[in-house]
C-alpha cells in the first residue's frame, strides 16, 4: 500500500500521511520515515539507470566517432593521391 502511494506521489502531504498511518496502523512518523527511505532508495536506483544509459550512449557515440575517423582518413588519402 505504501508502494502504491509512493508510485502516485513520492512526496508526502500531511493529510496523506495521517491517512496512510491510520489505514496501516502505524505512527505518522513511521510513514514519514518510510517515505524518506523510499526516496533515498529510489534515487540510488535512478542514478544507476542514468549511468547505464549514459554508458550505452557513450559506447555508441564512440563507435560513430571511430568510424567517422576512419572514413575521414580514407577520404584524405584519396584527396592526397
Amino acid at each position, binding site marked *: 500500500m505504501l508502494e502504491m502511494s509512493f508510485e502516485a506521489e513520492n512526496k508526502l502531504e500531511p493529510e496523506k500521511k495521517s491517512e496512510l498511518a491510520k489505514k496501516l496502523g502505524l505512527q505518522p512518523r513511521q510513514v514519514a*520515515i518510510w517515505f*524518506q527511505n523510499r526516496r533515498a532508495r529510489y534515487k540510488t536506483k535512478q542514478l544507476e539507470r542514468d549511468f547505464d544509459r549514459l554508458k550505452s550512449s557513450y559506447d555508441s557515440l564512440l563507435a560513430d566517432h571511430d568510424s*567517422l575517423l576512419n572514413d575521414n582518413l580514407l577520404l584524405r588519402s*584519396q584527396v592526397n593521391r
Partner: protein
Amino acid sequence: MKRERSSSSSELMGLERFSGWMGAGEEGVYEDEDGGGGAAGAAGGERKRRLSGEQVRALERSFEEENKLEPERKVRLAEELGLRPRQVAVWFQNRRARWKAKQLERDYAALKSDYDALRLSLDALTADRKALLAQVEELRARTSDKEEEVVAGDECDSKVGLSEEEPLLPAESDDSAAVVTGAGDECSPNPRGQPQLTGPPPPIPSLDGAAAADGYYYCDGPPPFYHRHLSGSPPPVVVRMVEEHDFLSSDEPFGGGGGGLFTDDQPPTLSWYYSDQWS
C-alpha cells in the same frame, strides 16, 4: 517484532544514507530526528543512541583500511567502542552503501565529461568529412574537365592544355611531374598518370598540403576520464544492483525517463539529484 526490526533497519539504512551521503557529516545516525524511539522503533531508549563522534571516527578509520568486516574485527571493534556487534555490522553495511553511491556519482561525472568531449570531437569530424567530401567532389569535377579537354583536342595541344590547366600542382610534387612528363613523352590520349574516367581518382597531389585543422582526437580517442579512472571493472553497484534495464535504441539514448530532463542530444543530467532538497 519482525515488523519493528525491519522498519528499524530500514530506518537505519535510510537515515544513514540520508545524513551521510551527499557530503554532510558522516555520522552513524541510528535514530530519527527527534531522538525518541518510542513506538517508532526500539523498545528501549538504550538501543537507539546516536553514535558519538569518536565512535564514528574509529569506524571510519577501520573502514578506510578494509571495507568488509570479518567476524573477529567486528567483535573487536564492538568491544573497543562499547557497541553491540550488530551495530558495527549495520554501520559497515550502510557505509558501504554510501561509498558505492558516492563512487557512482564520481563515475557518472567522469563519464559525462568524456561524453561531452567525445561529442565535440565528433562534431569536428563531421565538419572535416564535409570538407573532405567537397574536396573530393571538386577534384573529380576538375579531373573530368581535364579529361574532356584531353579527348577533345589534339594530342599535343591537350598536353599543353594539361600543364596550363593545373597551375595548382606544386612543381616539386612527384605526381604532378609524372603527369606533366607523361603527357610530354607520350602522344596518346591517355598519358601516363592520367587515369580513365572510371578508374581510380586522379593522382592529384594534395591541394592543402597538410591535414585540415583537426579539432579531434586521432588514434585513441579522447582521454577518457572514466576509463582511466576505472581499474578495469565497472562499478560494483552497476553490476550487482541493476534491477531495471531500460535501455532504449541508440537513436534515442535518453528518451523519456527521469522527469523529462532529456532531449535527444543531451546526456542525462543530475539536476534532480543535486538540487533536490532532502526533507
